[in-house]
């Protein structure tokens, strides 16, 4: 079930109507060309050799037998191909910042020695077919000197722990200083002094792979000094810039083509080592090279959500007012710093005294990086379970406790609009919260127990500047050029719809050109939930310009065209722009076998005006499904003795199947804050944030025991009940 509440919003001609994706037919009929579908004359296939050890120094490498294998055209290793992969490791995880990349202390190369995790790349082979390339890998002789390794972030900071880098295991921040990330608001100690009761708990979350359907791949084709790169990308402009930078080229010497891709969820931001390896092999071999990662390589060699350990302390008065919140936490980044290691959630509370200290830590696990709402789901799980526990301990309804303590607009910090309270109340009513939650957790008789939980969020809409170009010909056919790709949320269709609305023509009159940096202007990229609002605003402005031109000069005739472009720098007048959401879940736990089943799942979101209801709804559903998987199943288990990963892949990480997925009710409250294109805000990432928190709260309400570690697997439930 899904529903859109649009009180006070003016209906529009195109926006707000369920609209099939403009590339749906190509996709479902197999005509869509994904990166692996490209075939170029003389193309070679490439494979990467990876470290089988969690930490080792390579003593020697001998590629002569591989080179001698008929069909092998190029072999490159850490010895003869030292290319810095700028986005692979950045001080402070500042992914989009060139000066920080330049100053990065712990650089990552396309091939590394020492190797620092199982899956670290050391060499690659290009050959006339895939099988020869794979056989050639087996012929490369590598002698390793194994080094001690460390897997758990807290252990990595203990004295005497194996060192991933000589400077220690605490990751440097963006200034290059080895210090935790600290945010200190008010005076926590004074806040704790004011409290009647103080609660503490430790929460833990696992590594979650993005698990997008299409593993990484890259096809590189040099045309003189120009590199044409076919690669699945969530940001062709950023990928172009990163690739040019890493290869010592100018941006215009690189063309990125990403016409169709099989999902990203943050796996495909920026450039990937695959792009640089394919480009390097292709340059040496003098012909196009297609590099493909297997599922296992994609799982271990790219990245996933960072595992965390979070210690909370919360002070509360007897009437429910929270006076102090403190979190000390550890994020396991693997051996390279691809992202911040952030843990968000405390900011959703208004408590004036808040202290947060996060230690991003190097380990010898696989690398951590972007995954849909990179800092949020694990953080909301930790803080909202902590607060849910506090509410029950002091005898309050968690919803009332939240309404009392959540963040609201202040003099100092205004919002473009604020609907969190409405979202929560609306959700509680639809879900029938009062009837479903157990006032006394775990109070159902018998082994099958039900309970309900909820969680809430606000999520910032990213910033950035994009451009758009729109053209019209004498047939009144409009062409929109935007540098977007479609990682799932339907950006191509959304851009076409926004253009049609702004141009006051039907969508069928608008053709969208996307996914090619030589044909499309700069776009921020499909990350940070910002394409709709940032590129969308550029589309609106370009369309307005074109309409003015048409008004001034009339429709073009003959072979004339009119063209308009825009590169706006939108602001929100110093206010914060947030989307809001609340999720309510009812679960049934079979405490004899530790199984959790979801009986009801209600979501309410406010993401401004909804452009395309069908894709917006599916965004929330898909993200919620990922969040439930994080809550109940997914993890990457390592063997503590050998440092080997044991559970990569869909089968072992136990992703939800269709049979596991409950009905998910989606409700949007639509508003126009006057800032986004036609009032749109952000939706893409937000849906994933709340399920781990809400599901865990519901399990606690059902069984009367707090689940302090994700995923909530059977053994943990049975352990708690024993």
């Amino acid at each position, binding site marked *: 079930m899904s529903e859109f509440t649009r009180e006070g919003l003016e209906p529009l001609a195109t926006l707000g109507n369920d609209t099939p994706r403009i590339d749906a037919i190509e996709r479902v009929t197999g005509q869509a060309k994904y990166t692996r579908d490209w075939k170029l004359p003389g193309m070679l296939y490439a494979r990467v050799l990876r470290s089988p050890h969690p930490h080792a120094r390579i003593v020697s490498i001998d590629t002569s037998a591989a080179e001698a294998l008929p069909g092998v055209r190029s072999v490159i290793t850490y010895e003869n191909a030292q290319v810095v992969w700028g986005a692979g490791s950045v001080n402070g995880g500042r992914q989009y910042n060139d000066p920080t990349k330049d100053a990065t202390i712990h650089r990552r190369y396309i091939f590394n020695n020492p190797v620092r995790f199982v899956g670290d790349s050391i060499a690659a082979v290009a050959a006339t077919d895939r099988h020869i390339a794979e056989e050639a890998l087996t012929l490369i002789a590598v002698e390793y000197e194994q080094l001690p390794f460390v897997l758990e972030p807290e252990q990595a900071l203990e004295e005497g722990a194996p060192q991933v880098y000589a400077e220690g295991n605490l990751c440097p921040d963006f200034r290059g200083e080895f210090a935790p990330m600290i945010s200190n608001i008010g005076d926590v100690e004074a806040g704790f002094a004011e409290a009647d009761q103080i609660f503490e708990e430790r929460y833990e979350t696992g590594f979650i792979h993005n698990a997008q359907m299409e593993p990484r791949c890259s096809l590189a084709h040099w045309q003189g000094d120009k590199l044409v790169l076919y690669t699945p990308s969530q940001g062709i402009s950023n990928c172009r810039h990163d690739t040019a930078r890493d290869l010592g080229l100018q941006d215009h010497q690189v063309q990125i083509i990403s016409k169709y891709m099989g999902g990203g969820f943050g796996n495909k931001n920026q450039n990937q080592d695959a792009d640089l390896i394919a480009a390097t092999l292709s340059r040496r071999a003098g012909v196009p090279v297609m590099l493909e990662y297997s599922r296992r390589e994609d799982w271990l060699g790219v990245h996933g959500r960072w595992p965390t350990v979070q210690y909370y302390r919360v002070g509360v008065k007897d009437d429910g007012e929270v006076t102090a919140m403190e979190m000390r936490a550890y994020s396991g980044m693997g051996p390279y710093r691809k992202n911040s290691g952030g843990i968000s959630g405390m900011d959703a509370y208004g408590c004036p005294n808040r202290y947060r200290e996060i230690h991003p830590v190097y380990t010898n696990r696989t690398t951590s990086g972007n995954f849909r709402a990179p800092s949020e789901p694990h953080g909301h799980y930790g803080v909202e379970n902590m607060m849910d526990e506090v509410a029950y301990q002091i005898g309050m309804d968690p919803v009332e406790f939240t309404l009392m303590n959540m963040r609201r607009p202040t003099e100092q910090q205004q919002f473009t609009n604020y609907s969190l309270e409405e979202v929560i109340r609306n959700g509680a009513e639809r879900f029938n919260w009062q009837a479903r939650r157990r006032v006394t957790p775990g109070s159902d008789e018998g082994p099958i127990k039900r309970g309900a939980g909820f969680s809430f969020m606000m999520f910032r809409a990213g910033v950035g500047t994009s451009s758009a170009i729109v053209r019209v010909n004498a047939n009144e056919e409009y062409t929109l050029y935007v540098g977007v790709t479609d990682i799932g949320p339907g950006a191509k269709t959304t851009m076409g719809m926004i253009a049609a609305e702004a141009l006051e023509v039907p969508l069928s009159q608008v053709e969208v050109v996307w996914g090619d940096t030589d044909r499309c202007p700069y776009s921020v990229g499909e990350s940070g939930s910002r394409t709709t609002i940032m590129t969308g605003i550029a589309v609106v402005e370009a369309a307005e310009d074109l309409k003015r031109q048409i008004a001034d000069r009339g429709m073009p005739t003959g072979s004339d065209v009119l063209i308009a472009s825009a590169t706006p720098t939108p602001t929100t007048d110093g206010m914060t722009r947030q989307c809001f959401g609340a999720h309510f879940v009812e679960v049934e736990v079979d405490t004899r076998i*530790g199984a959790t089943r979801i009986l009801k799942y209600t979501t309410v979101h406010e993401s401004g005006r909804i452009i395309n209801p069908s894709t917006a709804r599916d965004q929330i559903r898909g993200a919620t499904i990922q969040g439930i998987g994080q809550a109940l199943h997914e993890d990457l*288990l390592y063997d503590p*003795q050998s440092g080997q990963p044991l559970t990569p892949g869909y089968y072992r990480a136990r992703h939800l199947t269709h049979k596991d997925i409950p009905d998910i009710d989606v409700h949007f409250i639509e508003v126009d804050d006057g800032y986004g294109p036609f009032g749109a805000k952000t939706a893409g990432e937000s849906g994933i944030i709340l399920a781990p928190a809400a599901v865990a709260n519901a399990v606690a309400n059902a069984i009367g025991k707090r689940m302090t570690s994700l995923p909530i697997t*059977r*053994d943990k439930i049975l352990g708690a009940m024993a």
Partner: protein
Amino acid sequence: MKALTNVNATSFAEAASAAQSARQQGQAVAFSAGGTDLLQQIKDGTDNADVIINLRTIGDGRSIGSDGAGIAIGGLVTLTELSQDPLVLSGLSALAQAADSVGTPQIRNVATLAGNVTQRPWCWYYRNGFNCFKAGGNECFSVNGENGQHAIFGGGPSYIVHPSDVAPALVAFDAVFQVTGPNGDREVSAEDFFVLPITNPERENSLTENELLTGVRIPTVSSSTVSTYHKIMDREAWTHAEVGVAAVIQRDGNQVQNAKVVLAGVAPIPWRVQAVEEFLAGQQIGEAVAREAGEIGLQGAQPLSNNAHKLPMISAAIERAILNLAAG
């Protein structure tokens, strides 16, 4: 993936002799039935076959039929066929249910009875390339490692659990396994087909090199026999059993005359819980009896450091399977 030779066999006997001659030339050989498991193992490098002997080109072994003595099921019958066959559905519910619980429809459409019963362990050490007993080494890495999915009964020196759902049902029905080798045919009871690691830590069954499983024969079950397969999984599909229970009960009204109870997912072979079978004989099926049976099912359990959570699951699974078989 390495280069391979494929041999299309036209009979089981030919497959056996082809295997023998390839081995005599020093090549590693694997039989491929549905190939759903084998090909992935070859790609992962956990099976190093040089020669694949393709059984899909064999005409025999694809039918299910009954004669006076019972039901004969060909080894190349797919799991989908097995789960939908009228003879199996009417007399051998536990077998149909077990087959239907395997993996996904896509896997069941291709995977065969013989391949399912002889599939290699899914232990995450073995499948991740550790040089364990199953790979020809002499260590079981689960003992001091991650053993949440490992054996509770019959373990040592290897602690794998047998992955097949179909096998426990076959044991519970007293199936006879038919085997063909270079030296001819033989029959072996389902129970004797599977071997504990104490006997042979490298292999899960008594097939010798170059021998194949060609089919099974299930003795006639009486009309008073009821059966079920109860599987606890970590998600609703596409995964092996955490704990499975095949229960076959001959009953008079609600009174048990004779019971066979065999567990999946907890031992290196399909694990008969004889104490439960003995307890059930003569009892009236009911909640208290089922619960006690579940508790008795834990006799002799030897959990490892990290798999004791399977104990309550075993009890619950036995209890629920038995209650499922209550009359009316």
